[in-house]
């Protein structure tokens, strides 16, 4: 385990910290113990292939840990009521954060990273991080297919999410029921993590803490991009969105993964082949793209039966990526969530691309 992979356990430590934050007598020693405990890591599963770890970049300094926001005296209590301007320019006033329902996985992750996870009473099915907490919380269904009734039944004092939450009718019903509904913008750029963190923190009445986390995440992203800039011969990366044999799509320009691949020092082979948005996978696209590496989501790879299943997709086996069995798989929320772990995900991708680039030289 690299020191950096160990970091993904952080929400556990974050919970410890929150208790400290709330005045529990937790010493720094206890904190260190918490960090060192080999508790289960729920983050991105390791890459699916054995990309040789020989020629690697200098290991990045352990990234600053999102949930390890040190408390500053006088800021412990959320300042309520809080006011926040949502993505449509409407002002939302939040009087209480006692019961929070989070509509999207990335927003849930941010709330936990801010150390406010104990107030969450409901999450959607895309919330997979931190796993040990999100699994046990009441599930309100899929973020794009929410039901207002299920959400209101949890008696929330705040419903918070990003603009992918829907359908709009359900949101209109929640608003009509008089529950504060705070929806943040979620632009498909690397500005999104900090923007969403600041929004969530503002809504929870802890703007300073949010500011510190946002700055940390921005710094991590910047560091990861520095790593990426050292890649001189960027590998061609083909991202495949897979759900079994029925849904197989290639990511082109204007997709969140395009932003990630480019920022991590790769070339999006889909975009190079002239694809915009997601388009169905075809052997021609694969041959035109000639990827050096194939990037997939962990669940997508499972849905086609692992690496062997993936390579039976027509055309793939004959590409450089297929011949070398260079397939990278990452967790959905980790890679595409644009949440607090974006910097880590970018750094990990950059590392992987760097290793592939080194092999290609």
């Amino acid at each position, binding site marked *: 385990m690299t020191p950096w992979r160990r970091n993904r356990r952080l929400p556990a430590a974050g919970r410890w910290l929150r208790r400290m934050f709330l005045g529990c007598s937790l010493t720094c020693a206890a904190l260190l113990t918490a960090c060192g405990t080999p508790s289960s890591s729920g983050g991105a599963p390791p890459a699916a292939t054995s990309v040789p770890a020989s020629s690697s970049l200098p290991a990045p300094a352990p990234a600053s840990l999102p949930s390890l926001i040190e408390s500053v005296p006088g800021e412990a209590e959320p300042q309520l009521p809080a006011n926040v301007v949502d993505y449509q320019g409407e002002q939302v006033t939040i009087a209480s954060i006692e019961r929070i329902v989070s509509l999207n996985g990335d927003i849930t992750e941010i709330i936990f990273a801010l150390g406010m996870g104990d107030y969450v009473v*409901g999450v959607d*099915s895309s919330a997979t991080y931190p796993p040990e907490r999100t699994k046990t919380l*009441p*599930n*309100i*269904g*899929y973020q*794009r*297919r929410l*039901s*207002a*009734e*299920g*959400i*209101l*039944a*949890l*008696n929330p004092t705040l419903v918070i999410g990003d603009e*992918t939450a829907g*359908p*709009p*009718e*359900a949101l*209109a*019903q929640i608003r*009509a*029921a*008089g*529950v504060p509904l705070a929806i943040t913008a979620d632009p498909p750029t690397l500005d999104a993590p900090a923007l969403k963190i600041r929004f969530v923190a503002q809504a929870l009445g802890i703007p300073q803490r949010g500011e510190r986390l946002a700055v940390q995440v921005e710094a991590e992203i910047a560091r990861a991009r520095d790593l990426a800039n050292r890649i001189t011969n960027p590998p061609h990366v083909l991202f495949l*969105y897979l759900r079994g044999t029925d*849904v197989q*799509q290639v990511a082109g320009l204007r997709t969140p993964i395009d932003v990630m691949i480019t920022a991590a020092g790769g070339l999006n082979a889909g975009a190079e082949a002239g694809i915009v*948005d*997601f388009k*169905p996978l075809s052997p021609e696209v694969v041959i035109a793209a000639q990827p050096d590496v194939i990037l997939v989501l962990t669940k997508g790879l499972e849905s086609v039966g692992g690496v062997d299943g993936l390579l039976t997709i027509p055309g793939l086996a004959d590409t450089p990526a297929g011949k070398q069995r260079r397939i990278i798989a990452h967790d959905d929320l980790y890679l595409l969530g644009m949440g607090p772990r974006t910097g880590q995900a970018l750094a990990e991708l950059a590392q992987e691309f760097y290793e592939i680039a080194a092999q290609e030289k």
Partner: protein
Amino acid sequence: MSAASTIQTSATLQHRSGWRRIGLLPALILLLLASMTLGASIGAVAVPPEAIGAILLKKIGILIDVPVSTQQEAIFWTIRLPRVLLGMLVGAALAVSGALLQGVFRNPLADPGLIGVSSGAALGAVAVIVLGISSFGLMTLPLAAFLAGAATTFLVYRLAQRHGRTDVATLLLVGLALNALAGATTGLLTYLADDAQLRSIVFWTMGGLGGALWETLLIAAPWIGLALLVAPRLGQALNLFALGESEARHLGIDVERVKRAVVLLAALATGTAVALAGPIGFIGLIVPHIVRMIAGPDHRLLLPACALGGASLLVLADLLARTMAAPAEIPVGLITAFAGGPFFLALILRARRQYGWG
């Protein structure tokens, strides 16, 4: 149809004219009231019937001594009541459209999908999703679905018309062809859709009443209400239609007018229903069958009974849809198909035994 079957038809009408015919409508009204009360009270947050009473009385200024939380009140007014009312309207619209079309096609398999309204509406909805149109806010999708559904039906009707007359068999075949065309176009758009759009399409195609708002209800109510009020007036004409089209004409029925009215009413009711709740299958098919099994084929009774029965059935199906996996929701179209499929199979097998098919 021969004279023998004419006699048989009227004999059947008379045979069933006992208590079943008299008792059916009051029983269905009670069933609908019970379904609505159940639908409004059961859910992730329970609003017991006495609380519903208290909430309703409070609205008109009478306070009674029943504990009601503000949460219950908010859920009842903003979610449950619009939802139950929409379920009622949509269920009634689908069942009555089904009964009308089965009557005019003289075919028990006819359902509102036949005249292209569902596939047209699906095309409109998918186009809005894939092309990302949102000119009319929340109403864009229902509006596009309704217009596309109505346009497809109009096209089916016009293409089937020749020398001012519409041959029912041609209507059926033209409907089939246009359904295939609309389906192919929908397929093409689906192929072009990205991941998020695909999911929206899939969920829309399964149907659901979750989007019920007072606004949508106010838009739906006049159209569906109009269709439901006018439909029973066609009852006598459809009874004569059962004898055969030319027989009906000889008996003084303006068959072209009846056909036009049926297609128009079915398109109006189904189009509005599909636009707001997505395609919900089987209601239009099974409700008329159930009613006929209980009270015989008299359309004067069949049409209002279908309205009440369809409304109750959909409200109950929706109740199942949102409680089975609470707090998440199963699309109600899946529930009606799960219940409707086996029912329909049983119906076919029964008919086979009765009439000695196969």
